[in-house]
């Protein structure tokens, strides 16, 4: 069984807010200095789901990314934790693509790979949080999609997914090939081992570009970014001070009451 995992490299979302900078003119986010980009957290979980299936059923896992030259390190990381094959679709303007364009390039790449039973994606990327690419790829390929998985398993010839809903989960079965988007509930991703890193260093990462796979990006964008800004957070916090903590606590309760909040 072949499993394709789509991953995206993003600026480290854990940086402190003070380090977050944008270029409002260029409508883009400036990468924080001295902080290496990381694989988007949900994509790491998608990778973990693939490796769990590999452990259980013996599958070949292929990691694919569309990104600038540095995104190769995300593929290297995927190889070091257990992917057999890594494909980097190098595109220096990847950050300017909308979800439909990104999905169309990944669709072409998946069609070029050809032989797959399952495609796994993160439920959304930790940068733009668009939450669309996985579903669009599935629609493009005409295969079933199950979103926000907390568990992915196989049953007979189908994929069996527990899909997170507000007050629990749905158990959904879909014939393969299918696409599943994975959520953080699946569990923490594994870390590379020394042997894994060594093995990964011997695998040659496959390099494609947008033309190689026949993707066209000339169309009008369906979604356009008009403005990007950092919301103004006025510090209007009233620090409640009193002789004792208990008095401060009383005072907070009284103010909340006065504001008719409690």
């Amino acid at each position: 069984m072949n499993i394709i995992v789509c991953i995206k490299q993003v600026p480290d979302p854990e940086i402190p807010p003070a380090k977050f900078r944008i270029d409002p003119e260029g409508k883009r986010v400036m990468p924080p200095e001295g902080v290496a980009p990381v694989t988007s957290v949900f994509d790491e979980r998608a990778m973990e789901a693939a490796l769990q299936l590999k452990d259980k059923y013996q599958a070949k896992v292929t990691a694919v990314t569309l990104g600038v030259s540095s995104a190769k390190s995300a593929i290297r990381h995927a190889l070091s934790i257990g992917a057999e094959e890594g494909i980097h679709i190098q595109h220096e303007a990847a950050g300017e693509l909308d979800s439909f364009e990104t999905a169309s390039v990944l669709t072409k790449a998946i069609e070029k790979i050809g032989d797959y039973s399952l495609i796994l994606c993160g439920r959304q990327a930790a940068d733009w949080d668009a939450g669309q690419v996985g579903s669009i790829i599935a629609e493009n390929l005409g295969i079933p999609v199950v979103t926000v998985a907390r568990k992915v398993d196989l049953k007979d010839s189908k994929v069996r997914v527990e899909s997170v809903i507000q007050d629990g989960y749905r158990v959904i079965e879909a014939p393969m090939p299918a696409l599943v988007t994975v959520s953080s509930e699946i569990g923490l991703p594994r870390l590379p081992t020394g042997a894994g890193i060594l093995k990964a260093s011997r695998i040659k990462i496959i390099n494609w570009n947008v033309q190689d796979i026949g993707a066209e990006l000339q169309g009008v964008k369906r979604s356009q970014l008009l403005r990007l800004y950092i919301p103004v957070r006025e510090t209007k916090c009233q620090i409640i001070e009193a002789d004792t903590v208990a008095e401060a606590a009383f005072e907070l309760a009284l103010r909340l009451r006065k504001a008719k909040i409690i």
Partner: protein
Amino acid sequence: MAEFKGVMVCAEFVNGKMSPITMELLGIGRRLADDLGEELSALLIGKEAAPFSQQAVAYGAQRVYLVSNPLLDSYNSDAYTGAITSVCRQVNPSIMLLGQTDTGRDLAPRLAVRLGGGLAMDCIDLSIDPETKLMLQTRPVFGGNAYAVMITPTARPQMATVRPKTMSPLERDDTRQGEVIPLEIGIESSLIKAEIIETVKEEVEGIKLEEAEIVVTGGRGIGTVEGFDVLRKLAGVLGGAVGATRAACDEGLAPTTMQVGQTGKIVSPNLYIAVALSGAVQHLAGCSGSKHIAVINTDPEAYIFKVAEWGIVADYKVTLAPFIEKCKELSTQ
């Protein structure tokens, strides 16, 4: 080419009721439609839906499209995607709104592909640009560090999913008049590929986080599992729910079902009480829609104070007991 006109809201039902997000969507949908001088319609799907036509009108819909089919009795992604696509191809709305909910999140990208529309997910503000008449779609990005305003210049419909509790519904007005139009939609059962085998409810004690008007959330600074019991006590007195940061969940202080943040639940309560948490951006992404924020933290430099309205710089262990006592006293007055 078809002319795209009007605003359509995709209604949702939960436990035999129209869910609050639907009234919120009708509220913003009506404002958008009024600004365009166009009509607002509501799409009601499923066997539960018909009795709610009048309610949709009372909350602002001028037209209600009713779709019923045995294959649509309960949610199925394939069947609903097919049905809503057919309706949109008949009605051709210029704007289509769904909730950023389990179903809205699942359906919207699929619909956008089939309809050829453009889509912005998890919007917290929508308006009409007075000049271009395009819908401006504001959504938090980069974990809430920045806001992006998106437009859909030429693709139609302009689609958006809306974060719950960010839009205010209109006052219910039962004198409003609207037209109810049943639509016949044929769905081939062979189109349903992914099947829902069962729906498992995981009972949460008390009020659900996403529905609570008051949320008390603890961070890593709570330190112990017992510490969270104190937060539960406070939530009990206030009629609220308890959340936890990812750091607290990672340390096993609280189950991940309680996690609030970008990778957890997104809440927009009236009051958010943040206890012993620093306010990482990933966390703020889950609570920045709160109307009021109060903070209890020992570190006056904690980022969470920047977004708060009231704060006490103190250890929660000595603050919460008197606070609970006072809240209890006030609630009996």
